[in-house]
């Protein structure tokens, strides 16, 4: 058995909100191996987003252990966490989070700006990443000039540009219609097929079925952890959906 890419042991997170103590996460122990495609499911308030934020080093746990590729993350300072987010993790958000009035290429190059890659290499790598998500000709478009699906693909290109070990997608299809959702999921499946580890947060069963493993949260705990027998093929489904649409 190889070392897991992600190991959490008794991971807990407690918030204080207006005097109330909210236990968002109550001891989550999970192993995720390189190359997996995991969907994290659960109703709102189940702690799935909190778990995701902890994995993404956007937040720090109240107690428990988190190891990324064998390295202990809990206890690192904010600069070190920024470095991990920059080099090892790619984020995809529900609301895309692209900088407005900024070209797709510059948006994609953003992570490279913070690790000192020279301008020329930044442009080259951003263009390569954009081509990978199939939008090579949209490099100079601003987010407002792109459709929702295209914006999310630009965001995925940004997540990929610094060659991370892990893609964290938080409700990536939440703001998209069915066909576009399928296209985005197809892209994530394609990345996973090439060996990228993908963790996806969703509350839609349909979307979760594209993953290879589904972890369900309720009240801050893992209540179910199952392998998907036969993940749905997003690319094939997208073709089907496109054929159904009136011309």
């Amino acid at each position, binding site marked *: 058995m190889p070392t897991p890419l992600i190991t959490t042991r008794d991971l807990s997170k407690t918030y204080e909100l207006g005097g109330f103590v909210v236990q968002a996460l109550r001891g989550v122990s999970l192993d995720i191996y390189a190359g997996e495609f995991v969907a994290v499911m659960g109703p709102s308030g189940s702690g799935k987003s909190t778990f995701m*934020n902890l994995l*993404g080093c*956007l*937040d720090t746990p109240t107690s428990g252990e988190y190891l990324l590729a064998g390295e202990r993350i809990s206890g690192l300072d*904010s*600069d070190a966490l*920024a*470095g991990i*987010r*920059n*080099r090892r993790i790619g*984020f995809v*958000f529900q609301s895309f*989070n692209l*900088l407005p*009035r*900024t070209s797709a290429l510059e948006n994609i190059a*953003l*992570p490279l*700006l*913070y*690790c*000192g890659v020279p*301008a020329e290499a930044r442009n080259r790598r951003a263009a390569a990443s954009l081509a990978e998500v199939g939008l090579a000709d949209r490099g100079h478009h601003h987010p407002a000039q792109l459709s929702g699906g295209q914006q999310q693909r630009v965001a995925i290109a*940004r997540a990929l540009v*610094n060659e991370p070990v892990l893609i964290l997608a938080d409700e990536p299809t939440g703001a998209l219609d069915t066909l576009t959702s399928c296209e985005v999921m197809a892209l994530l499946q394609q990345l996973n097929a090439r060996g990228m580890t993908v963790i996806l947060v969703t509350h839609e069963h349909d979307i979760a079925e594209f993953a290879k493993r589904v972890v369900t949260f309720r009240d801050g705990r893992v209540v179910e952890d199952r392998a998907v027998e036969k993940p749905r093929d997003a690319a094939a489904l997208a073709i089907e959906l496109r054929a159904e649409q009136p011309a």
Partner: protein
Amino acid sequence: MNILASIRIALRALRINKLRSALTMLGIIIGVAAVITMIAVGSGAQQRIEDQIKGLGTNLIILLPGSTTSGGARMGAGSRNTLTEEDAYAIQRDVPAVQASAPTLRGTGQVVGGTANWSTVFYGVTPEYFEARNWVVAQGKGFEPADIAGAAKVALLGDTVVRNLFGETDPIGQVVRIRKVPFIVIGTLEKKGQSLMGQDQDDVILMPISTARKRVLGQGAGRLRTVGSVSIKVRDGEDMAEAEAQIRSLLRQRHRIQQDREDDFTLRNLSEVLATREESSRIMGLLLAAVASVSLLVGGIGIMNIMLVSVTERTREIGLRMAVGARGRDILTQFLVEAITLALIGGLLGIALGVGGSVAISQFVGWPIALGIEPVVLAVGFAAGIGIFFGFYPARKASRLLPIEALRYE
């Protein structure tokens, strides 16, 4: 992240809110322009006074005879003939701090020359007078020692006299009659303009002191060669008070004045009056600059205000930048550079406006201005300083946001 990339990001952020950026800059533009203009006007006024002092001679001491008492009424300085030419020569010879000591006789009278006549002041002088009072011969030549020794009937005319007697024609070699005594004009004096007291300094004729005494004022018979005043120029770098003390002790000795008796002469130091004027103009200038600095301060607060708004507005952007790997100090740099860019662009525009305004003031209002490189450098430094000072708090606020909270900010 390098500084060039930061500047590019800052410029883009400022471009996105053009009107807001322009209005914020306006505060700095007006502040810097006001500081530069006020300093230019203030130091211009100061410079003019300094020039006047220089024209007069900063290190000039005027020696006047003492007063007489007639029936209990004291007659004022110069009413007694206690000073002689020999006193003046002794001062020149025996007081090392003195550069030039020039005895002078003063008179007024009608002058006839060319086709006109004119009432003016004439001074009987020695060649030292030119040095002591900073007179320059514009055309022709000055007096030779032989002119003094031989009481030659030669004269130098001030600019006003030349214009009134000769108009545009060349006065050199012409004859003028001063109190009916004929003189040959050997030269003209360079224009000096008005004195600080508003007198026309060019309405004057200079002649050898011996000529004035013997041929015009008719004092030839007297045993003592008395003079009206002595203009004494102290060497540069010498202490005025020290020189005055030496002159005083020399004269008391020469005039055999007892320890407990008053001087029979008066020493006047013109620069004291002018130093007071200079000081008041300097304070005025400082005051103007201080008032202008307040507007610069207000401009700085404007920058801080807008940066705080900007940080709040762009909280999600900050969150995203942090999510993709920006450290606190990257965010700090970004917002600081933005504030400094805002302040510097405003500062540069302010310099242009300030220099333009100063030139306009000198052109249209006619006030003297003095534009130096120092106020410009000062203003740029000040603008950058304001950017750093007022940008730091909002920038630090941005850099201390938690990534997850910034990302979730609505």
